[in-house]
């Protein structure tokens, strides 16, 4: 409860600062908000994109955050509150949560001057879904009717278009889904659903090196491993017109180097301060330090597919283990305030988030922890291994959690580090471990359904637990068929309550953005994706 209140406070605080800053800017006053130069660029800490810059081919932050500035889809999320807002779309209507009628705003053009039409979207989605084009985000289109035609599990596609997409005219098209997904418009804010200009399809590789989009910024140059330069697109039609002249994405290998540059004004906005600076960055940067919530959660998952953990009664053991963890102390000390304790399986700040779903089981209580573990029949062999990847900075907190468990319950808990992320993932998805493993979820879109349906549904792509609850599945399906997004959120809250009984995973804490900016920029705030409000950043003149 208190966590949620604090967050709302933080958001309100940032908004009011922003308003004050804008006010000062227009009157040319001094203070924190001086006048800004709308044609000046600012730099942002980035990493080299791992794939060509094609919207349906970027699932990592390096490429994703560049593309989201070069392209704009039907909708996006308001950085200040995470709410869905229309961009290229004038409206997206549905009466049955399965067929969506899309009406586009007119006047949008790509950076090459060609108009953005209904066809630009449909062609782009068909391209992204087609298995032949090998786009890493193609599963995003799997809700659309006819996806299996262009993306069969095996063999070659039988067609080049999905039959669920029909273009009426330049500004109208319909999306028919294979089943009901009431919150589908939320997915449309993802970068994979961006439109593409006609030229792209003739030369996808060339456009992947020199992308042409319809977003607030247009591509200028890509100096591999060094920087990607963009500039403001004058004919941008979105609601968030840029207040600066462009963004320079500077590639950094280490956060330490970026932080040193930030302090000396050689970098304007950074991604995350390095762990070594967490203790000091607020005093280093003063009011230029940023601490805001992110739509991401860290969990400890269990191998429910192993016989030792498949008995429903073992849920008590997992609840007990969860209660043995002192989240408040670990987030404050070991993690230095870079996380906030979790009380649900959905991250705070996303639509449909309800604090306290986990209830007493996420509250530190060693006495009850022991009782529950005993009632559940004890931890198999009285020992627990938590598998994690050693290259992600997880060792410290895994050790702390294990210390908690060992001291408070007597269970012999040890961390089981795997060399790197790939190796840990191979062990987890290959089901070669038995016990617990580090897992987590970063929002694809700020809605609770994303944290639940994609992770805990039977057979869901990221259900690494082997968790299968008919009750959860049924509630999730009901929520998917709800008439409105508000009903979907409420439906998924019911499904989330099932997790508190079955406890397939222990929610630990929510991520936070710990960042900052140079003295050359102002009005910097971060959204729940951990991205700054790009277009609203002001460069001081």
């Amino acid at each position, binding site marked *: 409860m208190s966590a949620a209140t604090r967050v709302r406070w933080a958001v309100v605080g940032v908004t009011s600062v922003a308003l004050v800053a804008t006010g000062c800017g227009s009157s040319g006053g001094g203070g924190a908000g001086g006048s800004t130069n709308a044609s000046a660029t600012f730099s942002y800490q980035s990493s080299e994109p*791992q794939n060509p810059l094609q919207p349906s081919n970027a*699932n990592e932050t390096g490429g994703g955050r560049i593309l989201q500035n070069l392209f704009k889809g039907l909708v996006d999320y308001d950085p200040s509150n995470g709410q869905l807002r229309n961009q290229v779309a004038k409206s997206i209507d549905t009466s049955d949560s399965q067929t969506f009628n899309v009406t586009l705003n007119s006047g949008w053009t790509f950076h090459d001057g060609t108009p953005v039409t209904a066809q630009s979207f449909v062609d782009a989605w068909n391209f992204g879904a087609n298995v032949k084009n090998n786009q*890493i985000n193609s599963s995003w289109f799997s809700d659309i009717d006819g996806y299996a035609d262009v993306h069969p599990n095996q063999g070659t596609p039988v067609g080049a278009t999905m039959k669920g997409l029909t273009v009426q005219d330049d500004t109208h098209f319909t999306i028919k889904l294979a089943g009901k997904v009431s919150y589908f418009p939320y997915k449309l804010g993802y970068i994979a659903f961006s439109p593409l200009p006609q030229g792209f399809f003739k030369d996808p590789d060339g456009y992947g090196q020199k992308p042409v989009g319809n977003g607030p910024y247009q591509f200028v140059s890509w100096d591999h491993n060094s920087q990607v330069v963009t500039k403001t697109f004058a004919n941008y039609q979105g609601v968030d017109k840029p207040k600066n002249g462009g963004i320079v994405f500077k590639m950094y290998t280490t956060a330490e*180097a970026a932080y*040193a540059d930030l302090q*000396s004004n050689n970098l304007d906005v950074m991604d995350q301060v390095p762990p070594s600076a967490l203790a000091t960055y607020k005093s280093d940067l003063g009011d230029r330090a940023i601490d805001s919530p992110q739509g991401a959660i860290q969990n400890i998952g269990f191998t429910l597919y192993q016989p030792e953990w498949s008995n429903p009664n073992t849920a008590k053991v997992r609840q007990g283990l969860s209660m043995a963890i002192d989240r408040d102390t670990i987030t404050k000390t070991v993690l230095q305030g870079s996380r906030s304790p979790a009380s649900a399986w959905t991250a705070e700040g996303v639509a449909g988030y309800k604090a306290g779903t986990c209830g007493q089981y996420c509250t530190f209580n060693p006495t009850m922890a022991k009782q529950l573990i005993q009632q559940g029949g004890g931890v198999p062999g009285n020992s627990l291994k938590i598998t994690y990847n050693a290259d992600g900075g997880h060792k410290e907190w895994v050790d702390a959690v294990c210390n908690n468990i060992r001291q408070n319950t007597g269970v012999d808990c040890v961390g089981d580090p795997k060399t790197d992320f790939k190796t840990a993932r*191979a062990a987890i998805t290959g089901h070669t471990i038995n016990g617990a493993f580090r897992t987590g979820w970063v929002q694809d879109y700020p809605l609770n359904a994303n944290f639940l349906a994609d992770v805990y549904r039977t057979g869901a792509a990221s259900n690494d637990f082997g968790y299968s609850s008919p009750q959860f599945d049924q509630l999730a399906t009901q929520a998917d068929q709800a008439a409105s997004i508000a009903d979907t959120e409420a439906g998924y809250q019911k499904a989330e309550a099932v997790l508190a009984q079955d406890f397939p995973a222990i929610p630990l804490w929510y991520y936070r953005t710990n960042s900052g900016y140079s003295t050359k920029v102002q009005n910097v705030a971060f959204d729940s994706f951990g991205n700054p409000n790009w277009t609203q950043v002001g460069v001081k003149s």
Partner: protein
Amino acid sequence: MGRFVARRLLQMIPVFLGTTTLIFFMVRVLPGDPVAAMWGDKAPDPAQVAAFKHRMGLDKSMIQQYVDYMANLFTGNFGQTMAGRKVIDVIGEALPVTVRLALLAFAIELVLGVAIGLIAGLKRGKSVDKGTLLFTLLLISIPVPVLGFIFQNIFATNLGWVTPTVQDSMNLGQLLLPAVVLGSLSLAYVARLTRTSIVENVKSDYMRTAVAKGLPKRKVIGTHLLRNSMIPVITFLGTDLGALMGGAIVTEGIFNVKGVGNALYHAINLKEGATVSGFVVVLVLVFLAASLIVDLLYAVLDPRIRYA
């Protein structure tokens, strides 16, 4: 001389083949699936993983991959990165940066190291000599990352003479600070080696002869003493050039230099076999060339050494 060089060049072939083979297999037996890891925490699409592996040739047997790789190598084709870029392009971007950085560091350690060692050797036992010993001991005992952060703090954050990180990796002026950090450890070794060598040779017969002949001091030191004392130093410098090229990962990270170390680090993280092997091939060539040059320099420095 010609026969010696030819023999050395021939010897390089097995060394070159051995190292590339080792690296090729070592990278590929690393655990984890690099293709599946591209999907992060999410479940990868099996159809796409298969297509991707096919495109990268990862679906063939390891022996077949090796044969293909070696065959391509001799036609100058280093393969592709996961992102679909040519490895040769990645090398082409990183190598010039690292060559600059390494040569700059090399020049610093050569000039300063030999000068310091020479002065200390000539003033043996004096306070200059003792100061040198202390100074070099300090350099040797401070780890490179610590030195990097100290220099970054002093010269960039506090004094503001330079930017904390390198803004343009091709700019020699900006590379100076990382080069000093990179070369500092070797500088200490060069200084100590030179000093020891000078101290030994200063008492030798040919030195007494040269002084007795009445040669000017500059000539005695320059032509006779220094030249004869350089052999151990040159041996060290030759191997060090290779180390400077490949071992700058930490320094490049601190100063955000987009060089070989940086690129290698990324490639190893992503388990990009082709990129790692490509860089190692280039580094092996650099090492071999440097050691050949060192051997040839022996003959130039010491007329007693002659290669048949």
